[in-house]
């Protein structure tokens, strides 16, 4: 198996206006930086983005939002991006805010062939509006459905030609589940290696979920909140 594509341009080939895209990352940690930047160079608009956050003003999804490429955003927390909040409150941007665990599980469910599942998260809140409620063990739960995407853009630390991925630190976050849920999953990695180099026992995302893989040119990896303690 060899899923390597020559460059980011080939990697995102086929993404069209109106499609549903999943984009991995938590805040700007573990973001598919290169794929997002390349997408911002296309004329793709009106996409539905499923991503935990909305990036910051000038990085990550922020650059797609700034250009009004996003028609609808499905996320759990958008507090770091003022432009996002402005577009949402003004009604320019359609927004579905959903619980973070539900978001993760709905992506996994799609990838795992589970069309729907029950979760307690959001019961009694506006998240539950219009959804089936069922009581299990005396506790009310709501029915949530799987999320599929035309493309999933994910980012890993290391990957091999077969598409196997290993993530690093908390840059793992939503990437593995989104990789499972994409009709076409594009993985970008900091280091692309041969198929003999990764330990099969340490793969986080098996290559079966990845259709295209490439090594990103550069990784900026900004830090949103640089918090430190003094050396004593």
């Amino acid at each position, binding site marked *: 198996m060899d899923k390597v594509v020559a460059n980011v341009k080939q990697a995102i080939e086929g993404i069209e206006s109106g499609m549903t895209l999943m984009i991995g990352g938590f805040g700007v940690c573990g973001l598919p930086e290169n794929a997002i930047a390349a997408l911002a160079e296309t004329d793709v608009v009106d996409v539905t983005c499923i991503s935990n956050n909305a990036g910051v003003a000038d990085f990550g999804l922020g650059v797609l939002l700034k250009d009004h490429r996003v028609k609808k955003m499905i996320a759990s927390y958008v507090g770091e991006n003022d432009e996002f909040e402005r577009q949402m409150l003004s009604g320019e941007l359609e927004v579905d*805010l959903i619980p973070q665990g539900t978001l993760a599980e709905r992506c996994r469910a799609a990838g795992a062939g589970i069309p729907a599942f029950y979760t307690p998260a959001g*019961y009694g809140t506006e998240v539950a509006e219009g959804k089936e409620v069922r009581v299990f063990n005396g506790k009310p739960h709501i029915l949530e459905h799987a999320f599929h995407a035309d493309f999933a853009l994910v980012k890993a630390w290391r990957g091999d030609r077969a598409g196997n991925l290993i993530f690093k630190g*908390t840059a793992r*976050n*939503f990437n593995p589940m989104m990789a499972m849920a994409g009709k076409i999953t594009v993985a970008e990695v900091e280091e692309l290696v041969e198929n003999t180099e990764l330990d099969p026992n340490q793969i986080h995302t098996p290559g079966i979920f990845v259709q295209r893989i490439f090594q990103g040119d550069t990784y900026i990896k900004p830090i949103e*909140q640089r918090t430190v303690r003094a050396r004593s």
Partner: protein
Amino acid sequence: MPLNKEGIAKRIAQDLRDGWYVNLGIGIPTLVANYVPEGIGVEFQSENGILGMGPFPFEGDEDPDLINAGKQTVTLLPGASLFDSAMSFAMIRGQHVQLTVLGAMEVSDSGDIANWKIPGAMVKGMGGAMDLVASAKNITVAMMHTSKKGESKLLPKCTLPLTGVNCVNRVVSNLAVMDITPDGFRLVERAPGVSVKEIEDSTAGRLVVDGSVPEMAL
């Protein structure tokens, strides 16, 4: 005298038990990690994929690939593990986390909580809060008793969109420790030098005062 944020965190830290896994929300809850009592071993869970989260890194050691749920750079302690978001919320929904501490804009006397949205004005999103409050067996809210305008945030009924219903077990505010009971907020402890009257005046929801109420020992 009412507690400051550190005081609230310190009081909540007294409730920690040895061997617990604990999820701390953004804001005051984060400070709880600084006051874990001597002899109590707990592990902090960060819903973006860490168990065994440690303090902030030393200057120069920051790793952009290692942040907490508040997007702050952090470190790992021995015995830590890293995982994806589905696994993280499996832990949370599956009730493997013994204590959740989070902030709130409003709490009702039946244990409802609102902390993610002010219609028309502010929408940050619920993040992991809805999963946490719907799942955890043991939820403590860390908050100021009243808003900046002096209005009570402990209400008969929340006015803001809810994060969860009937789920909060305890509120630790700058004025008091209160447990949610079928009869409303039961006053458990007063902040040092704060009178029952003062707490009653600042609480819009039902407040149950049983006999004399001890002061916190901080």
